[in-house]
């Protein structure tokens, strides 16, 4: 297993390296002189050159890249062009916000989606299955701003059960924070539920039709034992991998939800940075999302190999 994980870890680093190259060089291709963009069209050419020099953008590209990445791994993400302050001051709180929201959504949708998929598969082609599949599909088809606004109206405004802003007061405890995050998590759960349920359903159906399930049933095991011991474990392996690939979206792709609920996450940070041509900020955010994605995939691999003896035993082969 260790060899398998070591290989996966190496892949993650390669992926991140390629991502950093892409992010960096795509930033260079984009038109526009950095200092000119900052100082405006009427600034003196001398001042522009001086600022370019000060920002280091007049140095050779690979030097710039090397410096950037070297500082990045040490935790120094550089300075924002716009705010002229360290990027980390923005990224760290934004990331923590995003992670909290993602975690809430994740902890709700994964068990719910798997449960829905399993129930659907156990009732395949019966009304229960159709209802779950249809509900999942409809929920996934509805954009976040629709479900988000519906949530705000119904649960926040009419019923008044939940705060309509995700931003909690300063110094709020964990429970208060959680209370504020329930409403924004609902659109995310709705988007992902159908997807996860579908995967889980497909995996379950395959496992239920398998020869080893037949063996287990014909042994005389109770249905419950067959499902818990023999079916679930094999059925959910593909779902685990799929779930991991959704973390990128959950952490970095939530602009709409963050805007709707006035929440300072990575999504809105990256959007604002792109609008303001704040390249260092943009690059740092994209790379952070990449790292989150890589970590999630790696965790999925660990989990996968724990459940799958074929991978766990690889070394002893």
């Amino acid at each position, binding site marked *: 297993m260790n060899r398998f994980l070591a290989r996966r870890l190496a892949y993650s680093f390669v992926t991140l390296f390629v991502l950093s190259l892409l992010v960096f060089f795509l930033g260079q291709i984009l038109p526009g002189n950095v200092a000119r963009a900052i100082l405006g069209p009427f600034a003196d050419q001398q001042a522009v050159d001086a600022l370019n020099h000060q920002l280091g953008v007049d140095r050779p590209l690979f030097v710039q890249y090397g410096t950037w990445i070297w500082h990045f791994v040490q935790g120094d993400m550089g300075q924002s062009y716009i705010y002229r302050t360290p990027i980390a001051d923005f990224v760290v709180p934004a990331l923590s916000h995003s992670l909290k929201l993602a975690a809430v959504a994740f902890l709700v949708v994964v068990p719910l989606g798997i449960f829905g998929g399993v129930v659907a598969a156990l009732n*395949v*082609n019966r009304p229960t299955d159709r209802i779950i599949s249809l509900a999942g599909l409809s929920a996934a088809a509805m954009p976040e701003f629709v479900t988000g606004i519906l949530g705000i109206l119904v649960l926040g405004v009419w019923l008044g059960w939940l705060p309509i802003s995700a931003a909690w007061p300063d110094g709020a405890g964990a429970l208060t924070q959680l209370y504020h995050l329930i409403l924004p998590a609902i659109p995310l759960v709705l988007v992902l539920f159908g997807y996860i349920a579908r995967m889980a359903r497909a995996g379950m159906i395959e496992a239920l039709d*398998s*020869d*080893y399930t*037949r*063996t*287990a*049933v*014909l*042994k*005389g*095991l*109770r*249905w419950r*034992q067959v499902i818990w*011991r*023999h079916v679930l*474990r*094999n059925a959910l392996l593909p779902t685990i991998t799929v779930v991991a690939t959704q973390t990128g979206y959950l952490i970095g792709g939530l602009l709409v939800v963050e805007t709707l609920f006035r929440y300072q996450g990575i999504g809105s940070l990256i959007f604002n940075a792109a609008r303001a041509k704040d390249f260092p900020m943009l690059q740092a955010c994209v790379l952070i999302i990449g790292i989150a994605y890589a970590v999630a995939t790696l965790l999925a691999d660990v989990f996968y190999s724990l*459940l*799958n*003896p*074929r991978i766990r*035993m690889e070394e*002893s*082969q």
Partner: protein
Amino acid sequence: MACTGPSMTEPALCLDRLSVAYRTGGRDRAVLREVSFTIARGEAYGLVGESGCGKSTVALTAVRYLPRNGSITGGSVMLDGTDVMRLGPEALRQLRANRVSMVYQDPGKALNPSLTVGRQLAEVFEVVGVRPAEREVRALEMLKKVRIADPGSVMRRYPHQLSGGMQQRVAIAMALANEPTMLILDEPTTGLDATVEAEVLDLITDLRRELGTSILFISHNLAVVAKMCDRVGVLYAGMLVEEGLTRETLGSPRHPYTVALLRCLPQGGQRKDHARLDTIPGFLPSPGAPMPGCPFAERCALADGRCRTEIPELGDAHGRLVRCHYPDRAADLPRSSPADVAPARPASEAAPVLRVSNLSKTYSQGGHPIRAVADVSLSLLPGETLGLVGESGSGKTTLARMLLGLVQPDPGGTIELDGKPLAAGLGQRCDEEVKAVQIVFQNPDSALNRSHAVARIIGRALRRLGGFRGADLSRRLDALVEAVRLTPQHLALRPSQLSGGLKQRVAIARSFAGDPRVVVCDEPTSALDVSVQAAILNLLAELQAKRDVSYVFISHDLGVVRYLSDRIAVLYLGRIMEMGPSERVFEGPNHPYTEALLSAVPNLDESQDSRIRLSGEIPSAANPPSGCVFQNRCPRKLGAICETLEPPLTEMEPGHIFRCHIPAEDLERLQRRRKACAQIVGSSPEKARRYELAR
């Protein structure tokens, strides 16, 4: 034939007019039509027939595990005196736990990949309420009973860490753990090597004797059924068409279908230059097709008007049940394909078309070198077939792939085509060379592009391999399609609309598009029913006679290899252990490995030869035994010399070489004596062994 009677002893299994239908396309389609038979306690009953006849449906109905769309439309199943259809969930569970077990094909899939063998085996005891502490002990006992080496370590292993033979032993251990009344075996040895199959069949025979279990044995392999079963039933299109004692039924069949089925098999050393194999024309009626008369009438040369309008009853004919209006005529069933053949024997003085010298392939796995093929030299004459045989892992497929240029051999070996060196990699071969060496794969399903029509698949091959264009192309296409006995109607169809045999014909047409010199046939008939297999073998023989093409023919079925091959090479752990003219190899004297391989194959023709059992598994190529690679399993091992020195390939008679320290004369004497004593002592292997020892 009702299943409930006043008799004191209930039969182990009794089917009474059982009808089953599968619902597809909104319609119930009958797959079993009023099937009735009884298996007495302690009896072994064989069920044979081609795929789609309903054999597995019988098994699944008996344990009430029909697929979701399956339903019982009539009749009853009594298992050990219990009506299976009337059981509630708990009673059904108890029945499965205690009284009936099932073992099926592909043991790798039948075991749960993520649980240890010990855990899966212990569950069998759990369901009957054995205390947790005792379960493991009982599981271990059971593994010992199925003669698994090192049972303690097998308990802790996962299914994928075991070989196919060991997996099937585990499955059998699970099935027999609670000493069921009824054991259902559905193709239990299909897909296993001949030597492993022989061991598994022996094991089943022994355990049956020990436990007195009744057996329903389902197989497409008539020879295996002949060896294992007391009585046999022949299913055709969901109907039982013949039933009787195995030896009588298979020895002198009375239903035309049984007669035709047996004729499809190459038997008694039949070869391609003796006679064409007989085939069964037409196709199995599709499930649910209306059946106004005898189900076999459309394919039966003896059928008359009565057969097409009136379904025959299953009637008694000379102590046998036969569903035919004319059971006495069956033996006179005319051949459906003419017997005459005139294939020219390959001229032995001709220059070889393919010559392979010192070919090796070493793979590396985790830093360990694995010699998949070691120093193989052989040659192939124009129009000749070289059969490659050996257990899985013997290097047959790697060798074939090197010939095709799909696998790069180790430096040092050479492949020559018509005397000119052939580049090792497919990319370095010129078009002429690529089209000269072609392949037919085992599974035409995955070898043909599913989304292309037949015309496009063959046409593309003609363009790419033959270089034909325009009118020339369509003329060639027609000729090729006719040569493989397809009709123009097939051209517009996609592979999914064709039967297995027709698909394999398309695959053969594809490989012949560029007029190849050598075609590698990698188990081309293993996935096909015997009647289709016969037609494909006839086709291959015919194409060879007409086009002077040479075959490298890989198959695990020695009867098939014997039919088609002029020469045979026996591979073991990547080495040629024996190579010689087909007849010499089959008649002996042989290398001890060949001898074991030949004796492992169940045979329809003669009473059981005394059998040689190879102990243990085929060793890993990563860690081959010292000296002769076969020494650790060899029943005729001489002693120290076998462990220290690898014997060279020596010629023991012209064109017949093998790799053994035992002199040819001694081998010949030993093997003649074994055959003689087998005839004296009959079919009991133990007695034969004792007899041989006493001599």
